[in-house]
């Protein structure tokens, strides 16, 4: 039977375009308590670095009213060995859709090391290279804010891998299309955007930053228009497939993000406040598509650019 929600990333078929974003879904296994995660298009698992990391000091979460939240988790993860040996095999037992391995690092060598491990791991379909974490110093976002550095990471990772490489871009730049084109020219297979927007909250009673890290990444419904704009800008200046991400909280947002130019869509902060968000969005999509006279979801990708 025809699947109206089907989409594909670099030849990898997804039953639907809905993907929980890295950092908002753990390593997937934790979410099986809420629903059968096999309904998801794919899962982007928690960002992984070569060595285990605790991350930043507490507090590392702050609220932004109705609009979203700040996080300064700082890439807490058990290290690539544990992820490859334990987390991915355990996830593979309960999840039979593509797994997107999100990797991060503090040097080109870090990215190369983590990418090589993920490339050799069964179950990993796509490697998502995070060059946009705003919460770590001397790394992460530093690679995502200069076209040349972004190209270097892309090229180095491509040289040691066979699986599709998607570069996760930072919105904290003057012109995201420059970074996107640099990644494309360096051989990236796709792009994922946007990561969180650097933000700050102040406890006005204590006259202190809320976050111990002072600044953190802003996510949630408030960043959705920024994400749609950037996805559209990149779609108009690049040929690569795009995973759209940023503030998506309902089926209509998925449609909008795809119309802007995304081939698939990641859901982030919404998972934290509604653990059933992705499942509900997938269930709502056909109804919203009917209302909007969309037959196949693939038909709307980048339709605003036509």
């Amino acid at each position, binding site marked *: 039977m025809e699947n109206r929600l089907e989409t594909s990333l670099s030849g990898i078929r997804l039953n639907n375009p809905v993907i929980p974003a890295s*950092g*908002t*879904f*753990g390593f997937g296994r*934790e*979410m099986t*308590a*809420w629903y059968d995660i096999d309904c998801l298009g794919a899962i982007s698992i*928690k960002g992984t670095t070569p060595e285990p990391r*605790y*991350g930043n000091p*507490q*507090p*590392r*979460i*702050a*609220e*932004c*009213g*109705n*609009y*979203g*939240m700040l*996080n300064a*988790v700082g890439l*807490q993860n058990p290290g690539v060995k544990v992820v490859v040996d334990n987390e991915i095999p355990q996830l593979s037992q309960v999840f039979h859709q593509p797994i997107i391995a999100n990797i991060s690092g503090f040097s080109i060598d870090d990215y190369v090391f983590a990418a090589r491990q993920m490339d050799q791991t069964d179950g990993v379909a796509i490697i998502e290279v995070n060059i946009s974490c705003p919460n770590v110093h001397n790394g992460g976002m530093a690679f995502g804010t200069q076209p040349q550095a972004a190209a270097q990471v892309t090229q180095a990772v491509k040289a040691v891998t066979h699986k599709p490489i998607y570069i996760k871009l930072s919105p904290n730049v003057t012109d995201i299309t420059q970074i996107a084109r640099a990644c494309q020219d360096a051989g990236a297979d796709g792009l994922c955007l946007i990561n969180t927007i650097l933000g700050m909250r102040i406890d006005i009673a204590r006259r202190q930053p809320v976050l111990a890290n002072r600044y953190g990444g802003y996510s*949630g*419904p408030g960043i959705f228009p920024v994400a749609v704009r950037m996805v559209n800008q990149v779609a108009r200046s690049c040929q690569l497939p795009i995973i759209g991400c940023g503030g998506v909280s309902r089926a209509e947002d998925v449609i909008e993000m795809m119309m802007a130019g995304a081939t698939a869509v990641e859901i982030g*902060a919404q*998972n*934290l*406040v*509604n*653990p*059933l968000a992705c499942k509900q969005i997938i269930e709502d999509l056909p109804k919203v598509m009917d209302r909007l006279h969309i037959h196949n979801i693939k038909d709307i990708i980048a339709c605003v650019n036509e």
Partner: protein
Amino acid sequence: MTQTQYIVTCNEQIASGIWSMRLRGNTAAITAPGQFVNLQLPGLFLRRPISVCDWSEDEMRIVYKVVGEGTRYMSRIEVGVSMNVLTGLGNGYDIRPCGDSPLLIGGGVGVPPLLGLAKRLRMSGKAPQVLLGFNSDKDVILADEFTRLGCTVQVATMDGSCGIRGLVTDAIPDHYSYYYACGPLPMLRALLAQMTQDGQLSLEARMGCGFGVCMGCTIQTQYGPQRVCKEGPVFRNTELTTDI
């Protein structure tokens, strides 16, 4: 863990800035005292994690202090309002190692989850000693309810306006088999340094999700990083370091 709707049946002030709310709904997911719920509030993105004070088959009680926007909103919620709640979160207290004379130590708004614990200890035939610390007599909560359960209650206040003057850590009895604590971090740190028997301590943290996926509330423990919302909020004293 489950997401469910509760109806507010009571929401009343019980001390200075402290409110008690009763909610009717399915409590099947709550399996141990010391677990918490995460409340969705209109106009606020993140849910608010609040410890369960006590529960029955179809009713749950939470006791909370108004400290910010979320709890201020909660204090204005009227009877009959329906709330979206993630319930049965966290591990809760393990009553099995309590021994013959468990000691319950609560500080301020950390007292409420100990009431549900005291009730379950009483149901298993134990006679808990309860030590409660507050700043002043206007802050004292639930002391009479512990007494009604049949617990021996000692109150300590900083200004001496109720019970003995001083901190709970000044009033630790010589004899107890095991302890259960919930309260501010300085109190928990002092207990970790001072207590001679083992115990369990419940921590508080700023949370993103409340169910273990965002890593927002992680603390360092003797056994590596642990999530307050998932591996906790209750930790054994042997798991914690005094620099929590």
